[in-house]
């Protein structure tokens, strides 16, 4: 029996206008168009979306597997990027 060689696609769905597309899962399809149709059947059977993106999994470039690794360290010690870093007297309005 021949193995299916359909590529793996990652699926992103926009839940409604005004929201971002969000990753919902993956599927196999022979081409882009079928990937879209399969994604509609699989991930939006109950009006979960108004727009779908599909992208071949092999086209995605991801950061290193270790999510705590030094790649993200540069932002770790920069507390001054957050508004709560700054002490402002209570009685200053609109700030």
């Amino acid at each position, binding site marked *: *029996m*021949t193995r*299916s060689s359909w590529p793996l696609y990652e699926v992103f769905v926009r839940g409604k206008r005004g929201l971002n597309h969000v990753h919902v*899962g993956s*599927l*196999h399809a*022979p*081409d882009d168009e*079928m990937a879209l149709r399969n994604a509609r059947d699989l991930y939006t059977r109950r009006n979960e979306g108004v727009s779908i993106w599909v992208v071949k999994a092999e086209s995605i470039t991801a950061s290193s597997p270790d999510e705590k690794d030094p790649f993200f360290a540069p932002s770790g010690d920069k507390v001054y990027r957050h508004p709560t870093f700054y002490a402002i007297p209570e009685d200053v309005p609109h700030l």
Partner: protein
Amino acid sequence: MQSRELDQFEQTVAADHRVEPRDWMPDGYRATLVRQIAQHAHSEIIGMQPEGNWISRAPSLRRKAILLAKVQDEAGHGLYLYAAAETLGADRAELTEKLIAGRQKYSSIFNYPTLTYADVGVIGWLVDGAAICNQVPLCRTSYGPYARAMIRVCKEESFHQRQGYELLMTMMSGTEQQRAMVQESVDRWWWPSLMMFGPPDAESSNTEQSMLWRIKRHTNDELRQRFVDMSVPQAAKLGVTLPDPHLVWNAERGHHDFGEIDWTEFWQVVKGDGPCNAQRVEHRRKAHEDGAWVREAATAYARKKEQAA
């Protein structure tokens, strides 16, 4: 001394954070998940058969449409789960081949036949009810893609259980013959539904490690008890009797006591000697092989379009 990777894995699990596909994980954790998720996916796919059998025979267009949607959901659930298994490095086609070769299992419940239309209702109420008991805690399982798939599955299962119960309520308000049909169906499905939670804790080989890894959150017996306690008032409201003379409320425990499950039957069906094991797998094999030309044609068409571009 254990490795830095193992330390990090254990910390992630202990903190109730999710393990994600490209994280380091112990081989045993990966193997356990692939086995469990594949078995779960296979159950959804094989589970389309007993009910699919009734789509063309359902008594009204409304009931046909509902059943069709339900069986389509089962296919969807199978695909969510195969997708989750693939994030662990499993190959989907290989999983299907293992199922067909009998090297991977699916839930034993689907090896029982659906003899009457009341079975469609009872499967929704009891079988999907038991599945929900098993699946709700899996929404918090430690492996991210599995947990996310289960959240989708659980949202959809609730429709399955309610349509079943509603179907049964309708039949119970019908003729004497229809009520008898419901009772007869409950009599056949009650015990196999209890078996869906797996062997008793003392004999469940995978439970302890799976709980440590937070793949499982509750033992088989805990979930089985929860299901019994949930089902008793539902049965009373429906007006059916659950076929167990030992089923009584135990005020001291705050739970229902119930009779001994026939574990001989359970192991017999698990090992392949249930009423429909051969038929279910054979049907899946045939569907897979009959569909081969479609998969090949779609691949050939995609290749041709690519070359033309």
